């Protein structure tokens, strides 16, 4: 009975603490029940506020927890050092001059690392670490980020520390170093110039710091989550049955750096997890599957942690982790003898990350949960959102897996930045119009057009055309001139009869690509499926023009322009000023005019 009452009180305390940002006080801190605490009275910054908002949102919607009983939906335990800490640190050490004068990032780092952390903050952090012994991430929560213009990969660094050393003084040293580095990043050239561009004048920025439990589990010498990713409410590259508003997910094994840095990860629609254009054939799977992932080393690290390029993270090969639980669950096996992928990791053969267990066999209802989360976010923020998450898998039968809600930001900023309105006037003056375009936004960087001369096109000469495209591409790439490539059929088709069989390296300098469907090659539009990975990760605009429908490309006009270069099958023309390409991703509509 005693245990029962204690347990219930404990649960009640935990529940009451959810959605609440409590003030950290060393003597009252209970790491087990207090999920979200802050040190100081100042602002907690944009990112931390959004975490608090998410925490409250989850508290207000118990139904989502009830619907997914096999998953714990949580915010990682979080401590925020409010802007007081930064201000005290900067003023105590007289670091203000770094904002006004030009210093290299290295000089700023050196100056900040030499400076002393205020005593009161050190003692609070020591009290915190006396109870917290799991790996931590340390990152900024800037006031500037309130604007939500933060680029995807972030301007500021995130540092991860193992925080598992028996000597608390060493753990404290690591944590303080990480905080100083985050503080220093405020004065790096990138953020400074960004601040100038946003605020028109240099301004001192106060920085809060988020210290957060790293989502993950221990696997041998490493610590990482089974998967991490980003969910977005809007998909600008819908394929097959997908609809833009159904959203899109990018997921990868291990820590989120893989997705953030745009390395190979798996992109899927949460509504149609079975439809994976980049995984259509065995060759596609082998070419596109994630081969590397990031993990935090928690054993055998040096006392002077590496805060360099990967910030204590190690880039590991998936194959080296084939016996670790997440790979066992998420990997399939390649059977070379039959050139077949089997959706199990329990047979011999190279392991290939397909995430088939969750995408095909629903062993964890992650796609469904992500649909709900995106919807919750959309309702909560009143606009499309972008959510960062991580998952841990339970290795026990009927055990609960964890879904960590890491960050949520509105996509509104993106939409505003990229919002595209195509007017009737623009359609009238456009030399190209399409109702089947992928991507979103405006491109005003291209002044070059490379096109296959319509009257010279011969299906039997597509190999030669591919070579010619490669040659022109190399020259334009060298001059850093992105260009519009126009031609019939399926660009990148490996069957030379079906389109021009270019490889990515032949067209690597393109800004946009037009796939023409006409009498000579009237195949179904490929929508860039041969280059799907590159197109989506680089945000290339891919436009299909079906001649004879409402779509058009003005051949007469382009032919009237003087040629910069003319080959047997291609013509390269240059405009005096860059053309304007606009794609309204919501309507898949595109116009190009000059």
């Amino acid at each position, binding site marked *: 009975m005693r245990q029962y009452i204690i347990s219930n009180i404990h649960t009640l305390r935990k529940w009451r603490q959810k959605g609440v940002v409590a003030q950290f006080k060393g003597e009252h801190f209970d790491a087990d029940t207090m999920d979200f605490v802050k040190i100081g009275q100042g602002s907690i910054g944009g990112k931390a506020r959004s975490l608090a908002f998410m925490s409250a949102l989850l508290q207000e919607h118990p139904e989502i927890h009830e619907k997914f009983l096999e998953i714990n939906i949580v915010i990682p335990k979080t401590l925020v050092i409010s802007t007081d800490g930064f201000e005290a640190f900067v003023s105590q050490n007289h670091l203000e001059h770094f904002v006004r004068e030009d210093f290299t990032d290295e000089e700023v780092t050196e100056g900040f690392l030499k400076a002393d952390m205020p005593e009161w903050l050190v003692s609070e952090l020591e009290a915190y670490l006396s109870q917290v012994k799991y790996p931590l991430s340390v990152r900024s929560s800037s006031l500037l980020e309130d604007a939500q213009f933060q680029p995807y990969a972030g301007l500021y660094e995130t540092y991860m520390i193992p925080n598992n050393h028996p000597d608390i003084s060493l753990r404290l040293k690591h944590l303080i170093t990480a905080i100083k580095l985050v503080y220093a990043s405020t004065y790096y050239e990138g953020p400074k110039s960004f601040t100038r561009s946003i605020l028109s004048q240099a301004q001192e920025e106060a920085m809060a710091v988020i210290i957060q439990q790293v989502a993950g589990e221990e696997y041998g010498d490493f610590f990482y989550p089974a998967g991490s990713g980003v969910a977005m409410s809007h998909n600008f590259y819908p*394929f*097959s*049955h997908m609809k833009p508003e159904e959203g899109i997910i990018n997921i990868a094994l291990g820590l989120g750096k893989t997705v953030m840095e745009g390395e190979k990860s798996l992109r899927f629609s949460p509504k*149609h997890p*079975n*439809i*994976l*254009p980049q995984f*259509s*054939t*065995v060759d*596609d799977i*082998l*070419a596109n599957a994630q*081969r590397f992932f990031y993990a935090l080393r928690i054993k055998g690290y040096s006392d002077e942690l590496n805060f360099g390029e990967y910030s204590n993270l190690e880039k590991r090969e998936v194959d080296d982790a084939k016996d670790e639980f997440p790979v066992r669950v998420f990997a399939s096996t*390649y059977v*070379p*003898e*039959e*050139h*077949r992928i089997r959706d199990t990791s329990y047979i011999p053969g*190279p392991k290939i990350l397909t995430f088939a267990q969750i995408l*095909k066999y629903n062993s964890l209802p992650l796609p469904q949960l992500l649909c709900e989360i995106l919807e919750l976010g959309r309702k909560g923020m009143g606009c499309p959102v972008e959510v960062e998450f991580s998952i841990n898998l339970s290795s026990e039968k009927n055990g609960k897996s964890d879904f960590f809600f890491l960050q949520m930001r509105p996509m509104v900023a993106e939409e505003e930045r990229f919002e595209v309105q195509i007017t009737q006037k623009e359609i009238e003056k456009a030399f190209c119009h399409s109702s089947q375009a992928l991507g979103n936004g405006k491109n005003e960087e291209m002044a070059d057009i490379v096109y296959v001369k319509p009257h010279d096109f011969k*299906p*039997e000469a597509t*190999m030669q055309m591919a*070579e010619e495209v490669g040659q022109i591409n190399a020259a334009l790439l060298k001059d850093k001139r992105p260009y519009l490539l126009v031609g019939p*059929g*399926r660009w990148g*088709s*490996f*069957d030379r*009869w*079906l*389109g021009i069989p270019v*490889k990515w*390296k032949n067209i690597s300098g393109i800004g946009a690509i037009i796939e023409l469907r006409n009498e000579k*090659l009237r*195949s*179904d539009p490929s929508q860039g*499926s041969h280059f799907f990975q590159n197109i989506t990760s680089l945000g290339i605009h891919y436009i299909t023009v079906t001649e004879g429908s409402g779509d058009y490309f003005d051949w007469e006009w382009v032919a009237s322009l003087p040629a910069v270069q003319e080959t047997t099958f291609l013509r390269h023309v240059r405009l005096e000023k860059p053309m304007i390409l606009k794609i309204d991703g919501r309507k898949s509509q595109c116009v190009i005019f000059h």
Partner: protein
Amino acid sequence: MANILKAIKDKDPGEKEFHQAVQEVIDSVQPILDRNPEYRQAAILERITEPERVIMFRVPWVDDQGQAHLNRGYRVQMNSALGPYKGGLRFHPSVSLSIFKSLAFEQTFKNALTSLPLGGGKGGSDFQPRGKSDAEVMRFCQSFMSELFRYIGPDIDVPAGDVGVGAREIGYLFGQYKRLCKEFSGVLTGKGINWGGSLVRREATGYGVGYFLAEVLSQHGQSIEGKTIAISGYGNVGTYVVEKINELGGKVVTIADEYGYVCDPDGIKGEKLECMADLWCVYRKSAEDYATQFGCEWIKDKRPWEVPCDVAIPTAMENELDLNAAKTLVSNGCMAVVEAANMPCTHDAVQYFHEHGVLFVPGKAANAGGVAVSGLEMTQNSMRLSWTREEVDKRLKMIMGNIHRTCLEAAEMVGAPGNYVVGANVAGFLKVADAMLQQGLV
């Protein structure tokens, strides 16, 4: 001859791919037709260019959302003079009757060259497997086979995989055929190894190239033993070319990709070969990784043909070996060039090899190992046997020897002794034409 081509064009004016395929064959067999009036009398050329049967059918299927879709299915049964129609199924949105006719026409001669009892055919659908779920692909395959099963069988027509049709699709197609026909037979090749597939399928093309090279050198009193060999690609073909050459005592010193090549003067052997096998086939890594791992020289933006070698084997892509490369090879004393890919040597390079006495073997002869093992899969199925790896390999060696002999005999017959290009172009046609002649006007 021009009349025949004109008649074909007039009859089916839109079939440009087919016209081109016919034109190429007519050009290469012109001397034979001139010398053999019986072929003309029996209208061999007219008949050989007309499919014995073309089947076109609708393929309705339902996607995961319950929406119905319609595709068109094709099977071109081009020629069965030498055996049951044999040729792949291709699922790709841009296929057409013209493409299937041209592919089936070429397949007929390719199969004939192996000396196995195989006719020629090709088929498929304008279905796009890309972006479809497994369940959708399965429903499509089942619907496709629900019509095709009437026209195929282990002694009638034996399709295989091709673009868009891999092990998954072959499995679904076979399953539906078995259900509809109530029989487990070798109606498709490329099956899973534990349900009727053959061993050595993956290795077949590479091993076949090795065997063919051994035959070519032996014909000139030489052997692979001690020879230095340069190859380009390192995919399935390249890997098994290296394995077979090592086994036969040669030394392969290069591998390449589109970004450069690796030179390994000690030869790609043992652990290095194991690494190479996975490099592309599994991990899609650059050849440079091999250089990094084993401390070899990586020569950026160059082709491997500048490395002195006795034999060059282009295994990568079309037109990868041009006239300049040919000149370099000849000046370095290269004695033989064997194409393992499809048309990797440019026309002028081939001409240069011939002019300078380099033994040149075209891909259509050297890389027939794949078709040969498909034929062996059919044989094993009809015998209800699964041969060991050694047994299949032994028979593959025998078949490659036959192809070599057939090419030489055909070249000799048309007055171009030792010319493998002429031999390979003519031999397949001769085998089919002779069989048709003997079987009467059918």
